C-alpha cells in the first residue's frame, strides 16, 4: 500500500513537471509552429528533392554521319523520355561550351565514317562526353546510354550476349525516394528532438530556474523523466507526421507492422533524447548547448546511411557508427517499412540503441546534480 502511494506520488510529481515542460514548449506561438511546420515542409520538400533517379538528362549531339544508324540510335535515346536534346552542334568546338556551362550533361559525337564502318562490319565508335562534376549522375547517364546502345546492337543481330533478368525485391523500380524517405522518418524528427532536449536544461540553467528545480523534492530520476517525456512525445509526433506523408502523399507501400515500426522509433527517440539531455547537462548556457548539438548533428546525419551507405565507409568509421543511434533508427525503419522485417530480423539494431540510451540517460541524471556552474 505504501509503495503504491509512493509510486502514485512520484507519478504526480513527474506529470506536473511534464505539464510545465509542455507548457514551455507550447505557450509560445512560434514554438508551436516549430513543432509541426518543419516536419511537414521538410518531408514534402525533401521527398521531392532528394532523388538519385535520372529523370532529365539534357544532351547535345554532334552528328557528322547523319546515317540510318545514328538517326535510329538518337531516336531511341529521345524515346526514353529521360534524354532531352538541347542542342544540335555543327562543330566540335562547341562541345566544350555545352559541357562547361552545364547546359548539357552529355554530348554525343558521331564521326562521319560511322555508317560506313558499321555497314562494313567493323566497330563503329560512338563518342560520349560526360560532365563529371556530379560523378553519380554521370555514372548513371553513362550506364543508361550503354544499355540503349547494347539493346540496339542486339536488334542488329550483334553478339549473342547473356540476358540479365532483373528483379528487385522491396523496391521493384529501384526508386531512390523509397530508400530515402523512410530514412527521413527517423532523421528529421531526430533533429528537433535532439535540440529540444539539449536546450531544455541549458535554458533553465541560463535563467537560473534549474537550481530551483534541484531544491524541490524531485529526485534526479524524476527530473530526468519529466524532462525526457515531452521531447520523446514531440519526436514521435513528428515521426508520425512524416510517416503519414510518406504513406499517403508519396504512397510508398508499408510492408511491415506498425507496432514494430513504433517500437523502433520509440527506442531510437529515447536514445536521441538521452544524447540531447547529456549535452544539456554538460552545457552551461544555451549557446554552448546549441554549439554541441550542431557539432553532433552533422556527423550523426551524414554518417547514418541516410544519404550514402554505411558499407562504403572505411572500416574504422563503420565501427564508430555503432555509437550513432540514427544509423540503427534508419535501418530499422527502412527494413520494417520496405522489407516488412519482423522483430527477429531487426533485433540486432536494438542492441546498440539500448546501450547508448543506457549510458546517456543515467549520465544526464547524474550530471544534473554534479555539474553546477
Amino acid at each position, binding site marked *: 500500500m505504501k509503495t503504491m502511494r509512493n509510486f502514485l506520488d512520484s507519478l504526480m510529481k513527474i506529470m506536473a513537471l511534464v505539464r510545465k515542460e509542455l507548457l514551455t514548449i507550447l505557450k*509560445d506561438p*512560434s514554438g508551436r509552429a*516549430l513543432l509541426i511546420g518543419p516536419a511537414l515542409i*521538410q518531408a514534402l*520538400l*525533401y521527398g*521531392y*528533392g532528394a532523388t*538519385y533517379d535520372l*529523370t*532529365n538528362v*539534357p544532351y547535345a549531339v554532334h552528328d557528322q554521319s547523319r546515317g540510318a544508324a545514328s538517326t535510329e*540510335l538518337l531516336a531511341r535515346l529521345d524515346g526514353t523520355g529521360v534524354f532531352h536534346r538541347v542542342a544540335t552542334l555543327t562543330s566540335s568546338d562547341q562541345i566544350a561550351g555545352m*559541357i*562547361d*556551362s552545364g547546359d548539357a550533361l552529355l554530348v554525343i559525337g558521331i564521326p562521319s565514317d560511322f555508317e560506313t564502318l558499321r555497314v562494313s562490319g567493323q*566497330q*563503329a*565508335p*560512338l563518342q*560520349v*562526353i*560526360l560532365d*563529371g*562534376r*556530379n*560523378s*553519380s549522375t554521370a*555514372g548513371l547517364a553513362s550506364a543508361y546510354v550503354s544499355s540503349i546502345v547494347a539493346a540496339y546492337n542486339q536488334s*542488329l543481330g*550483334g*553478339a*549473342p550476349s*547473356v540476358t*540479365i533478368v*532483373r528483379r*528487385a*525485391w*522491396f*523496391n521493384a523500380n529501384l526508386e*531512390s525516394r523509397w*530508400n530515402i524517405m523512410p530514412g527521413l522518418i527517423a532523421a528529421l524528427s531526430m533533429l528537433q528532438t535532439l535540440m529540444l532536449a539539449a536546450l531544455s536544461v541549458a535554458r533553465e540553467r541560463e535563467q537560473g530556474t534549474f537550481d530551483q528545480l534541484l531544491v524541490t523534492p524531485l529526485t534526479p530520476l524524476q527530473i530526468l523523466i519529466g524532462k525526457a517525456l515531452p521531447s520523446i512525445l514531440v519526436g514521435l509526433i513528428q515521426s508520425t507526421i512524416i510517416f503519414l506523408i510518406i504513406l499517403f502523399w508519396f504512397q510508398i507501400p508499408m510492408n511491415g507492422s506498425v507496432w514494430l515500426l513504433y517500437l523502433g522509433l520509440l527506442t531510437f527517440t529515447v536514445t536521441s533524447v538521452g544524447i540531447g539531455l547529456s549535452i544539456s547537462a554538460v552545457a552551461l548556457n*544555451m549557446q*554552448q548547448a*546549441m*554549439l*554541441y*548539438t*550542431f557539432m553532433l*548533428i*552533422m*556527423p550523426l*546525419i551524414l554518417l547514418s546511411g541516410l544519404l*550514402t*551507405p554505411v*558499407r*562504403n565507409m572505411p572500416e574504422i*568509421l563503420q565501427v564508430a557508427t555503432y555509437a550513432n543511434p540514427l544509423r540503427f533508427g534508419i535501418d530499422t525503419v527502412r*527494413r520494417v517499412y520496405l522489407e516488412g522485417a519482423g522483430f527477429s*530480423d531487426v533485433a540486432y539494431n536494438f542492441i546498440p540503441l539500448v546501450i547508448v540510451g543506457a549510458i546517456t540517460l543515467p549520465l544526464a541524471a547524474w550530471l544534473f546534480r554534479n555539474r553546477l556552474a
Partner: protein
Amino acid sequence: MNASGFTTRLVALTRKETRQMLRDRSNLVVGLLLPVALILLFGYGLSFDVKNARLTVVLEDSSPTARQTVVGLQGSPYLAPVWVRTMDEAERLIRAGKTDAILRVPGDFSRQLADGNGRVQLLLNGVDSNTASTIEGYVSGALSTPVLQQADRTGNKSARAATIVIVQRTWFNEAGESTWYLVPGLIVLVMTLIGAFLTSMLIAREWERGTLESLFVTPVRPLELVLAKLAPYVVIGAIDLIMCLLAAKYLFQVPMRGSLMLIIGSSLLYLMVSLALGLFISGAMRNQFAASQMALLASFMPAMMLSGFIFDLRNVPVVIQVVSQALPATHYMSIIKTLFMAGDIWPDILRSCGILTLYALMLVAATRRKLGKTLE
C-alpha cells in the same frame, strides 16, 4: 565628424564582440576545430563508390560454359561474390541482410545459351536503390565479357560484327571519384554550419537579456552593430575556410583547376552571406531557442538536401528547383564545384557571385531593419 564617430563606435563595438567571442573558449575551439574534424570525417566517410559489393551466386548449371560465364565476377574489385548451392540458402541471406544481390544461373543455362537465349536471373535488394543499380551495372559488365571471348575462340567472327562501341570520356572527373564532388560540397556545408551556429544566437541573446535595449540609448546605430557582430566571426570563418581548402587539396587530392583567388574570393563572399543569414535569423526570432532551430532548419538542412550537394538538381520537379535556386548555398555549390573540377568558367561564376553579393547586402540591410530602435 560624423564619419569618424562611425569608425570609433564600430571599432569599440567590434572590440567588445571579439572579447566576448574569445572569452567563451568552447565557442572558439568548436569554431576552429569542428570544420577540420568534419571535413576529415566526411571526406573519408562519404562515398558512393561501391566496393566489394556482396553478391551471392547460385550456379545451378555446372557446365563449363556456365562457369566460364561467371568467371569474370571474381576478378572484379567491385564485387565480392559468395557461392552457395541452393536458391533457398541465397534467399535466406538476402532476407537477413547479409547479401545485397543474388545471381542465379539456371540449370538449363548452357543449353539455352547455345540457342542464343542465355538468361541469368539477378535478384536485388532494392531498399538501397543506388547500391542496387550499381551492382546491376557491375554484374552486367562482368558477365558479358566471357561470352564475347568465347564467341571469338570458336571462330564465330560474325559475333562481333556490326556493333557500335561507346568511346566514353568523362570530363572533369575521369575516374568518377565521388570524393571529388563530395569534398567541395562539404566545404559549402561547413561554411553554412559555421555561419548558422556562430551568429544565430548573437542578437537573440541580447534581446533575451535586455542588453539590446540599453544599446538603444547609446549613439550606436543598427548598421554599426550588425557589422561589429559579423567582423570577428568572418575571421574565424576565413581560418576555417583555409583549413578546408588545404585538406581538400592535400588530403583528398581534389584538383583545383580554377584560380585560387577566385575560390577564396567566392568562399569569403558566401561566408558573409552565411554569417549574415545567421544574424538575420537571430534578429528576427528574438529568442535563442527559436533562433537556433530556425538556423538549423532554414540554412543547414536545405543546404544539405536541396543545393545540389548530393542530389542533382536536374532530376527534381520544377517547384523544388525554384526553392533551391532561392538558396544562397545552391549558387555557391555550383561555383565551388566548377572552380575545383572544371576551371574558371567566367559567365557562370560572375552570375553566381552577383547573386551572392545581392544576398549579402539584402541580409545585412534586413538585419539592420530588425534592429531598428523600437520597443514592443
